[in-house]
Structures are given as C-alpha cells and as structure tokens.
C-alpha cells in the first residue's frame, strides 16, 4: 500500500482533532464567517467548516493543496469528482434508508443497492483517474491507492456478488391472485397481459384528447404489512436468491473503505472552493494562487477584493472596486486614513482575508498576490458593546491590544480598525503612537485603519494609504485606497460642501 493518507494534508501536515475546530476569534471581524458559510453552503453533510477553521503551518502543505486545486481546474476531472460525490451521497442515502426500514428483505435490498452504488462509484472513479492527466502529488497518490484497492480480492468479491444478486432479483417475476381477502403468490406463468388487450379493445373509441386518468399510488419506500407479507411469500418462491441476499448482507456489513470515505469528504473542500469562486469569475472577478512565503514580509496584491462584500454586491449585481497594495522592506505597516465610508475597513479586511485564505491553501480574490504565512492572525476591531461607558470601552480596547501584543511574534499579522476612537484626540494620539511603536518593535505585519494622520508618518516602517474621493465631486467615493501621504483635507471639503459651508457657499449665504 502506498503512502496516501489524505487529500487535504501531505505527510508533514496531518492535523489531528480537526473535526472539533471552532472558528478563530477574528473570523467575525474579517467577515470570514460569511465567506466560509457561503463556500460550504449546501454541503453541510460533509462538515467542511473545521477544515476552513484550521490554518496550515507549512508552506509545503499549502502548495500540496494548490497543486490539487490546479488538477481540479480540469473540467473533466472536476466532473468525475462530482459524479463520484453524487454516487457516494446516494449510497449514504440508501444506507440510511436501509436503517429506517422495518422488514428484513427490504432492509437487505436497500443495503445491496448501497453496495452496488458504492462499487460503481469506486470503479468509475478509478477508471476516470486512470485516464486523467494528474500532476498533483495528492491525486497521484490517491490514484495509486484506488488502483490497488480495486484490484484487491475484497473489492472484487463485493462487486461480483452484487452484480449477480441484482441480476437475479431483477429477474424475479411473480403473480398475485387476489380474491376476497386472500392473496395467493405464485410463479409467473406468462399469462397474457390483460390490460393491453382491454386497452386495444377500447382503443377504437378514442378521438380527440380527453382527460387522462392517473391514479397516484404512494411512492413511499416503506411497505405496509400486506406488501411485506407478500414479499415473504415471494422469498419462499425464490428461496435461493433470498438466502444469497441474506448472506451478502452479513458478509459485507462494512464494505465502505475508510480512506475512500475520507477522500469523499475532504475533496469537497476543493470542490466547494472552486465552485464558489466560479460564481465570481463569471462576473469578471479574478482569483489567483498566491505565492505564500514564511521568509519575506514583502507582500503585495493586485486587484484584490473583499470576498464577503463581493458576494453581497454580486447578489445585487452591483459593481465592485478592487485595490492594490505592496510593502517593500523595511515597510511593515499600512496606516489607512481618509474619507469615511471610503472603503478603509474593507481594505483592511481584504488584507486579513487574503492572508487567512492563503493560509488554508485556497485561491485568493485578486489578480496576483504574494502573501506571508503567519503563525498567528489578530484583529483589533471596535466593539459595539458598552457605548455608554467610554472609559470602560477604552480600558477594554487597551486590555485587548495588550493581550494581542503579549502573544504576537514577528511572524504574526495584526489588523486594527479605528482603535482608541473612543477617547479624546490627545489621548488617542498618545495611545496610538505608543501602540504603533510597540508593533514596529515587534517587526510584525499590520494594517491599521485610523483617523490619526500622524500615525501614517511615524517611521520608515509605516506606509500611508488613503481612501479617495472623486475630484470633481468630493461627496462621491471611489472606494480606491491608494498609497499616498495622508491628507484630511479632501474629506473635510466634502463634508463642508455637503453642509454648504465652503468658502464660496458661506460668502454667498452671508451676502444674501
């Protein structure tokens, strides 16, 4: 047997206890909860969220996943995986139904059908993978595993027996003679089809179209006790077939291979990602496999966007603005200022989302990106609660940032949004500067959205990014965040115009 263990983890990266993984703390701040909900929607049965809640620690594992995704971009392979998944789902449905049913021969038949679907799913997938042009280590190893498995005697028996039994059962034909309260079950003796004869006799009266009479009988898989009793008599009429069925169910109780079962679940991680981004691609938005590194902090991104926001706008068919960013050594910190409602928080979230999505080996929203593999990701966003207690809020802010700085390492990323906005300008400036200096000292990557222009030029490690407005109409936002010295004036002018308090406006108003 080869070394295949998981389609999600290379040998170095196998995680344990993933299934219980809750969403990280920062998920809500970055709207990643919405993103993951959107990606995994409709796949609840696979319980995929834990995989999305578990960032990877090694670049190799991320590349392992990227390679698999690249394989899956082949439409044919993607289709094969889709039909495999569909069959596996049908198989589980049959097993569940077998479990629910009461009558022995019915349970057994549903079990047999489940095994049949499983054999078909595995055989087809093996065949399809054999013909596929696979490049990724993950798929190559899985193919080898499948080939060995399907050649094994166990699978061979499972398959051969199910075929024979199904053929036998579909040949079962019997007659019911109903008279009074008796139903006699006999072997079918080629008695002529009386319906056909009657239909033919009355065919002559047909002219034009009249109402069709159809009688709906329950399509419920359950049987009533009369049907079950009839089935028992049918089994008596065909004793060999039904005892084979009985034995089959005993012998192959656990026919499902664990590795294949895991594959079926885990591969859905990729399928979900690819299907999700397909919706955006058809709207003209780009995704890319980012270059992920744990060595250099010179990150950049082109035409990146907030995936959660994109999802909302897509539903409204509204256009979306993308942004660019880069850091050159020794730059570490984006200080984002400028007009409110101008896309500052979105920009900060975007950088957080990109790094997180990269850390789980997903494609990221943007034309091209180079991202840093963090050890920890922190967010410091304004908390809505305790608005009436400003000192309590400031204290909470400080406690949280303290806790973050305690745990952060040079390999951590911090996304800050309007920290210390709840105090006086003097306090805010002082606290902001202090905290920023600590962050600089820690040499970590950071995005800080703030109204404090001064923070933008604190050191050579900070980069000033500004939200922009349309020059002719300052009240209109472009949602573009550009690398530029902070300048509060554009925003002030927009506000002034809105209240007709510009120079001309005021003069005019006074003059009148």
């Amino acid at each position: 047997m080869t070394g295949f263990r998981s389609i999600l983890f290379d040998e170095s990266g196998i995680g344990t206890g993933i299934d219980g993984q809750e969403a990280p703390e920062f998920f809500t701040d970055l709207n990643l909860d919405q993103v993951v909900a959107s990606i995994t929607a409709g796949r609840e049965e696979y319980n995929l969220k834990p995989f999305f809640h578990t960032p990877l620690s090694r670049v190799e594992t991320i590349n392992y996943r990227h390679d698999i995704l690249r394989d899956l971009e082949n439409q044919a392979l993607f289709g094969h995986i889709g039909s495999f998944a569909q069959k596996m789902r049908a198989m589980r449905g049959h097993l569940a139904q077998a479990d629910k049913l009461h009558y022995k021969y019915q349970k057994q038949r549903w079990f047999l059908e489940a095994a049949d679907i499983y054999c078909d799913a595995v055989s087809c997938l093996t065949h399809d993978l054999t013909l596929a042009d696979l490049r990724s280590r993950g798929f190559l190893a899985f193919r080898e595993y499948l080939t060995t498995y399907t050649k094994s005697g166990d699978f061979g028996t499972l398959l051969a027996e199910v075929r024979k039994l199904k053929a036998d059962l579909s040949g079962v034909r019997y007659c019911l003679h109903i008279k009074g309260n008796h139903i006699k079950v006999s072997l079918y003796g080629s008695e002529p089809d009386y319906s056909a004869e009657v239909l033919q006799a009355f065919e002559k009266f047909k002219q034009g179209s009249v109402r069709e009479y159809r009688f709906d009988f329950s399509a419920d898989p359950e049987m009533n006790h009369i049907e079950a009793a009839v089935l028992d008599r049918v089994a008596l009429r065909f004793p060999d077939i039904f005892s084979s069925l009985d034995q089959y169910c005993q012998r192959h109780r656990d026919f499902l291979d664990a590795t294949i079962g895991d594959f079926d679940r885990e591969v859905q991680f990729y399928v979900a990602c690819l299907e999700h981004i397909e919706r955006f691609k058809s709207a003209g938005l780009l995704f890319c496999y980012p270059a992920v590194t744990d060595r250099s902090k010179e990150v950049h991104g082109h035409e990146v966007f907030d995936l959660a926001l994109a999802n909302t706008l897509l539903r409204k068919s509204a256009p979306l603005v993308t942004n660019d960013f880069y850091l050159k050594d020794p730059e570490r910190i984006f200080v984002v200022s400028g007009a409110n409602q101008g896309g500052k928080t979105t920009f900060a979230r975007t950088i957080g989302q990109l790094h997180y999505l990269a850390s789980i080996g997903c494609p990221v929203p943007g034309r091209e990106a180079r991202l840093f593999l963090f050890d920890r990701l922190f967010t410091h966003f304004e908390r809505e609660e305790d608005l009436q207690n400003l000192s309590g809020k400031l204290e909470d802010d400080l406690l949280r940032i303290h806790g973050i700085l305690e745990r952060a390492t040079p390999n951590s990323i911090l996304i800050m949004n309007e920290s210390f906005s709840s105090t006086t300008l003097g306090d805010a400036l002082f606290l902001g500067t202090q905290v920023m200096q600590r962050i600089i000292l820690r040499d970590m990557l950071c995005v800080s959205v703030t109204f404090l222009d001064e923070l933008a030029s604190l050191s050579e490690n900070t980069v000033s990014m500004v939200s922009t407005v349309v020059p002719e109409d300052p009240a209109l936002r472009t949602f573009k965040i550009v690398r530029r010295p902070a300048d509060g004036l554009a925003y002030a002018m927009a506000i002034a115009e809105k209240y007709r308090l510009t120079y001309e406006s005021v003069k005019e108003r006074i003059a009148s």
Partner: protein
Amino acid sequence: MYMDRDFDQGGEISPNEAALTQDLELDTLFGAMAVGDKFLLEVAKRAVLTSLDEPEAILYRQHILADCLERSAIVREMYAIAVEAIEREKKVWGWGQYPEGMLHRSVEVIKQIMDLLRRLRKIADEHGAEFRSEGFTTLFRMFAGELDDDYLNGVEDHLRRLQFRDGILMSAELDDGNKGTRYVLRKPWNPKQSWMERIQTWGEQLFLRDRSDFVVQIADRDESGFRALTELRGRGIGLVAGALGQSTDHLLSFFRMLRSELGFYVGCLNLRDRLAGKGEPICFPEPFAAGKVILSGRGLYDLCLSLSVEERVVGNDVTADDKLLVMITGANRGGKSTFLRGIGLAQLMMQCGMFVPAESFRANVCDGIFTHYKREEDSSMKSGKLDEELSRMSSIVDNMTPNSIVLLNESFASTNEREGSEIARQIVRALLETGIKVIYVTHLFDLAQGFYLAKMDAALFLRAERLADGRRTFRLVEGEPLPTSYGEDLYRRIFGAA
C-alpha cells in the same frame, strides 16, 4: 359540420354577436330552429354565428342538409339516440376517484351505451345507402366498419370479464427496494389447464409446500390490511380503469358531438317545416370565394319578419354583382330595413351552410359580417348618441378585415345631416378602398348624393319604390337618391288625411 374537424361547441364566435343578434333579429330565427328546446337553441346560435369562410365547406354542409331535408325522420331518430346516450350516462351512479370505483362505473356506463351503438349500426345498415352527402356517407361507413358485431360482442365480453368475479390476477416484479412494481393485469390461462400444468400444480401441492404457505390472508378486523389490499388491487387494475374511464369519456363525447352536429340539422329541419307550412320559398345559395364581389338574388325576403307574421312577406330581387357599395334610400316603411335584414340573414345563413330565404341567391363569402344600426334607446342625449355610434363603429373597425361586409342602417343620423354625412363619407370611402362591402340604408341625402355623383362603377343605388298614386310596394328599384323621403306618404296613410 366540418369536413376536417368536429363541431366545437366551445369555439370562438363573432365578436359582434350581440349586435348581429339584435340588428338581424336572430332570436326569431333561433327560436324557429329550437322550437322550445334549450339545447337546440344553443346549437343554432353557435352554428349560425360561427361562419364558414370557404365555399367548399359551405357546400359540404349544404349537401348534408339536403340529405336531412329528404330523410328527416331518420335524422331525427339518430338525434334522439344521441340524446338518450347522454341521459343514460347521467343516471349511472358512481364515483371515479379510485381505480375500482372508476372501473365499476365505466363498465356500467359503457354497457348502457352499447345498445345505442347497436341501434346506430342498424340505421346505418338499413338506410345508409339512401344518403348521398359526403358527411353522412362517412358517418355511416364509420358505423358499419367500426361497430361490426364481432367487435361489439368482444367489447361486451370484456365488460363481463372486467367485473372480476374470479378475482384479479396480476404479475409483478421487485423494484430497487424489493417493493412490488410493474403490476400488470393478467388474463388467467383457460381454466381447463393442460395436463402438464395440472401435474405441476398437483406436484406443487403434494411435494413442495403446503399451498397455504403462499397465501396471505387478511384478518377480518384488519382495516389497514384491507386498505392495503384495495390499493394493491388498484395497482393491478389502474391502467384498465383509466382506459375505461377514458373510453367512457370518448364514447360520451362522441354522442355529445353527434347530438350537437345533428342538433344543427334538426334545427334546420324545424325551420324548413315552419316555412314550408306557410309556403315561403327556400333555396340553397351559391357561395363564391372571398375576393370576388358577388351579391344577387331573386325573391329575397326577411325571414324573421316572415316568422313573426301570418302571411307571406314581399321578396325583393337584387343584382349587385361587382358592387361594393349598395346605397338604399327612399320612403320610410318602404321595405328598406327588411331588405337590408334580408341580405344580412341570407349572407349569414349561407355562411353556416343553411338554405336561405329566397328563390335564388348567390354571394361571395365574407370574413366578417357586421351591422351598424341606429339605436333607438337613449334618444334624449344627442351628443351622447353620436359618441355611442362612433364608439360602436370604432370597435367594428377593430375587428374588420378586408372581405368583410357591413350593413349600415341609418348610421350617423344622430347628428345633423352635414356632420353625419361627412363622418359617414370618410368612413365609407375608407371601407370601400380596403375592399369591404357596404350596404347602407340612409336618409342622409348629402351623403347619398355625393356618392351618386362620383359615378363609381362599384356602387349601386336603390330606392324604395313608390307608385304614381303614392302607394308603396315594399320593393326596391334602382334609382338615384331623392332629396325627400316619403314620410309624408306614411303620415298620410296612417292618419288617413289628405
């Protein structure tokens, strides 16, 4: 009724049905056809108001009607059979929601109807040869060919068997969940089994198993068991029950169709009898294809007037071939309106395949027959009346196609003559230029004179005849419009003053 389809009682009829009925007094005609029978009344309305637009289709009906006129007793008997079939079905009680209920009811209804089918067959056998029209020949050939004794006996055999006195036999297979499926009703082999089969059964009984091992018996109190048994039987007979249900519907719709179609001809027979009783002439008109402009006849009379008086009424001759405009002027009560109605009725009756009230008549078929008559009601409001007239005209124009005919009776007289004439002139000229035939009875001298002076080839001017002594003959003669009407004459006659 039609060469290529059944007479559809739910079909579309002319949008101007109400106006036609009122202006041509069609209720009198319908009444004479129905003689008090509600169903015949509906059929008459439907048929008369659904015009045919091909001369061939009209001739097809005329030939059938000719057969009917000659063999009226047989046609009436067939009609009675159709009526009885419908009546019998109503008397069979039953409920068709479940297969067994439907099967039972259908078997009962079909049994009742078989006897009527046999009677129709007998008529076909005995009298089929006496009928000459394509329509009847086809019908009788169908009876003779489709309903032969072997077939009818076979059907009755099935009806007996479908009562399942010996229980229901059906075959089944197992579906993917081992539930029974593909239930097929089976016909047991002849009870006299071959010796081989008998030995098999015997062997089975003796050596293999106790027969009762293969029998499921439902306990007396097992209600859900009996429900399940009913459902199981239903699965076996569902197909047959559905088919029988459909057959019943087909048979009934056949008889309904027969009743509707013969109903029309029976209505025609009633009308013929009534007219023959008072010696009024009828004739089969000669239809011409749309596109030609034909309108000629001798002794054309107002059928509805005749039906409402004791004596015979005066007929008129008309020769208006190649005339798109026929403008009728002249004395009040001089027969203008009855002449106009006579033309309308003849045109309408011709286009549904009937005979017409005339000694001879020929005309081209029209796509639409429209009437625009002066309405007597709400005479109080002059302007409102013109509005009403124009709005009616406008909806007529909405529905018109070239090749229509419109009968105007004192239209646009609700305003002064100058205005009325101008309105009418513009409308009429437009109609004529699009190829619509206009028959216009009018007092509007300005209008009539204008058209007369234009000396159009396609215009004919008729005048109510007045003899030298001032008496009216109720005949129309060709002649130019005259500035005065003959109201004075009428006044004098009625008031008897000089």
